[in-house]
Structure formats: C-alpha cells, structure tokens
C-alpha cells in the first residue's frame, strides 16, 4: 500500500515561467481609488465641454484649476499653463496619481501614455502623489529630472535651480551625468549647469549640510572630512552617495564611518565603492534603506 503522505506531492507549486514578470509589467490595477473617480469625472466633463472636440488629436490630462476659490475644468497640454496669484491646479495623471501645482508656477505636459507620463516645470512648485511602477512618472526642470520610484514629493523650481523634497517612498533626481536617490525625509537640489547634489536628511545639522554643499560645489576635501565626522546613523544614505564621488584617498574614512552605521554586504571590497551600480554597492544600499536608526536623544 502506498504512503498517503506521498500523494501530497502532486499538490506542489507548479512554476509558470514568466508569470510574475508578465504580471509585474502590467500597470497596477487600483481598488476603488478616489483619484480614478475624480479623473473619470473630469475627463467626461472635459469631453462634454468640447475641450477635445474640433482640434487635432493632442495629448492632455484633465486638470482642475482653483482661482481665488472658483473651480474650473481644463486640460494640461503641451502648451504652457501659467498659474497666477491665488491660483492652483490639480492634474490627474491617468490612474496613477495626482499633481498639485501651486500659484506662480509654469508647467506643461510633455508626454502621456502607458509607458510614461512626463511634465515640465519651468518655475514654481508642484506636489506629486503617485503610485506607479518606477520611472513611469517624470518631471523635467531646467536643471534636472525628478523620476518617480513610487512616492510623494514636492519639487520647487526657481532661477537658482530645483529642490526636491521627498515625503514618502523614493525619487531619483538625475542630471549632468549624476543620479541620486532621495529617500523619504531627505532633499536634494540641482543648480544650473551642475550635477544634482548629494541628498541630505531634512533634519541634518547645519554644519553637515554646509560640509556637503562645499564638497558638492567646489570639491573641498576638508569638507568631506568634516562630513564624515558630523554624520549620524540617520545620514547613512548621504555617506553612501558620497562614496563614488569621493577622492580615492578619502574613501577609506567614508567606508569606515558608514560601516559603523550599517554593515557592508558579505564579500565587500573597497574597490566596489567607485561604482554606485556595482552589485556590492547596490546590496549595501538595500541594507541602508532597510536600516532604521534609533532617534538621536535630544538634550
């Protein structure tokens, strides 16, 4: 007589090659998201109002503008939308989220479709709340691009450059050959003709922020030494970003300090620090993102 326990093996999980990849590559399905309802109503209202009728096919996103308390429906298109004093706009980005644009801003739509939604913010402030696959939503500014990796953030653009502040999730800020990943509770900036700055925590000390700024702007190596001394466990992500751009002679001190906060991955070699995309650096980054430092006691 056969062992009945053996029969259980036929209920075993059967892999279906490519199943999860296929599912992951589909746009996320939403469960009763208010944004969908608002988006649908706005789109329907716009069609009813004839916004899309009589003109050649063009890209647009439904947008609600509030002007001194009065609401009106319009569409964000490739033409610049300028918001005056007392005006704000809420753009519904398909089914992935919303963007609120503050008064005094100049914004336009560059692309919208299943593979990417792309806005351009020339000046002013926008607040994005997006739930989407990474890199599906992008905002270009004159100095850098903010690439959504699943998050909520505020982007401000002035003549001095762009400032990205992340409140949830993470955002990539890319420009001039540098890509920095800004985590929730951090900010990074980009100035004209300069690479994005090293991200710093919103609660980092003024001395650390100044040191990072001096290193980013003029490669002041004494500032890098200061940053190593001033960094707290909460600044581990900042130190990680400094590794590939630090002079080789100063990497050892950075690695030692970062190691004191978050252990490097198994098999770590210092040579890996030169390339942020190396598997060892990526593994260390994963550990840093999972790291939850204890709050610094207040005196």
């Amino acid at each position: 007589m056969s062992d009945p326990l053996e029969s259980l093996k036929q209920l075993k999980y059967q892999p279906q090659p490519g199943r999860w990849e296929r599912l992951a590559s589909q746009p996320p399905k939403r469960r009763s998201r208010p944004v969908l309802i608002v988006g649908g109503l706005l789109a329907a209202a716009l069609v009813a109002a004839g916004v899309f009728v009589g003109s050649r096919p063009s890209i647009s996103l439904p947008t609600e503008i509030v002007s001194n308390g009065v609401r009106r429906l319009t569409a964000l298109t490739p033409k610049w939308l300028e918001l005056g004093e007392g005006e704000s706009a809420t753009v519904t980005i398909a089914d992935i989220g919303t963007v609120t644009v503050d008064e005094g801003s100049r914004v336009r739509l560059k692309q919208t479709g299943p593979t990417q939604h792309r806005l351009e913010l020339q000046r002013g402030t926008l607040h994005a709340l997006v739930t989407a696959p990474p890199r599906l939503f992008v905002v270009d500014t004159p100095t850098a691009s903010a690439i959504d990796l699943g998050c909520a953030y505020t982007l401000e653009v002035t003549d001095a450059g762009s400032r990205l502040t992340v409140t949830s999730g993470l955002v990539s800020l890319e420009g001039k050959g540098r890509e920095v990943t800004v985590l929730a509770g951090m900010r990074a900036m980009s100035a004209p003709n300069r690479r994005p700055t090293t991200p710093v925590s919103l609660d980092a000390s003024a001395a650390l922020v100044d040191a990072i700024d001096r290193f980013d702007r003029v490669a002041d190596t004494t500032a890098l030494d200061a940053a190593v001394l001033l960094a707290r466990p909460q600044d581990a992500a900042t130190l990680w970003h400094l590794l590939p751009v630090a002079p080789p002679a100063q990497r050892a001190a950075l690695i030692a300090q970062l190691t004191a906060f978050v252990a490097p991955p198994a098999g770590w070699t210092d040579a890996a620090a030169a390339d942020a995309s190396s598997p060892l650096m990526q593994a260390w980054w994963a550990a840093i993102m999972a790291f939850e430092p204890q709050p610094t006691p207040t005196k």
Partner: protein
Amino acid sequence: MPIYEASPADLAAARRGDRLAFARLFEGFAPMVHGVLMANGPASEVDDLMQDVFLIALERLSSLDTERVGPWLAAIARNRLIDSFRKQSRLVGLPTEEQGAHDPQRAEANQVLAIIRTMPDTYRETLVLKLVEGMTGKEIAEQTGLTPDSVRVNLHRGLRLLRERLGLDPDGGLDE
C-alpha cells in the same frame, strides 16, 4: 533543493520599486507562499490568492523588508486569507470542488490535505511546506522566519499526529 538565496541586486532593486526585480524575487518564495495558502485556504482558490499576494506585495514594495522577505510575504498571504474568509463569512474546509476529483491519487491528496487543515495552527503550515512543497526544515525556517527548533518540533509532533489520524504507525517516516 538548495535553500533559496535572493539576489542582493534584485532585493535592492525591488526595494527601490523595481517590479520586474520583485517578480524574479517572488518566484523563489512562491512555493512557500503557495504552501501557506494551501495550508489555510481553499485549494481551488490558491492560484488566485497567490496572484493577489503578489499584487499586494508589489503595491507595498516600499515596505519590503530585505532581511525578512519570506516572513513579509507569509504575513501578506495570511492577511489575504483572513480578508478572503471575512468576505465569504465562512471557513472553507474540504476542497470539494477540486479539479481531478476523479483521479484517485489526487482525491487521496485532497483528503490528506483536509485532515492537515483540521490540525492545530502550529503544525499546519509546517506540514504543508514539508509534505506538499518538499521543503526541508532548514528551508522552512529560513523562509517563514520560524526558528529551526520550532520547525523541528512542529514537524515531529505534526507528522506524528497526522499519521495517527490517518491510521498509520505514528512513529513511521519521522525523518525530519
């Protein structure tokens, strides 16, 4: 079968929200998720529930614990089952609608599974992961977050109880 070791690159990328990296990662934990669902839920719905678990995890990538991916997925699976039970307002017992009900071997497997589902919580998942998914005690501990000692005890006592309930020699086949 070797213990599944998630690729650090996929872990990091998934934590950053890379959906395809997470899909690759998930495949390695799929037998464990399947086992957790199979131990507690209706067999005919396990495939749909697995897909739900995958999609829920995708939505929550920012909270992915790279050190404890397995326990994180197992918790999502158990919560999904609770939601499913709430919606159905009942606990599903025997997989009466199983495909292959006319296949004697499959029918026998479903009967044994039904008996496992009547066993205490502490034994159920461990037994299914061992007997259905073919995982070793070490793999079960690695992927569910249980201690190796707990898994060993659960397997020993659970197997003994199961064999008793099946009318088999309780001390036969206790090789784990």
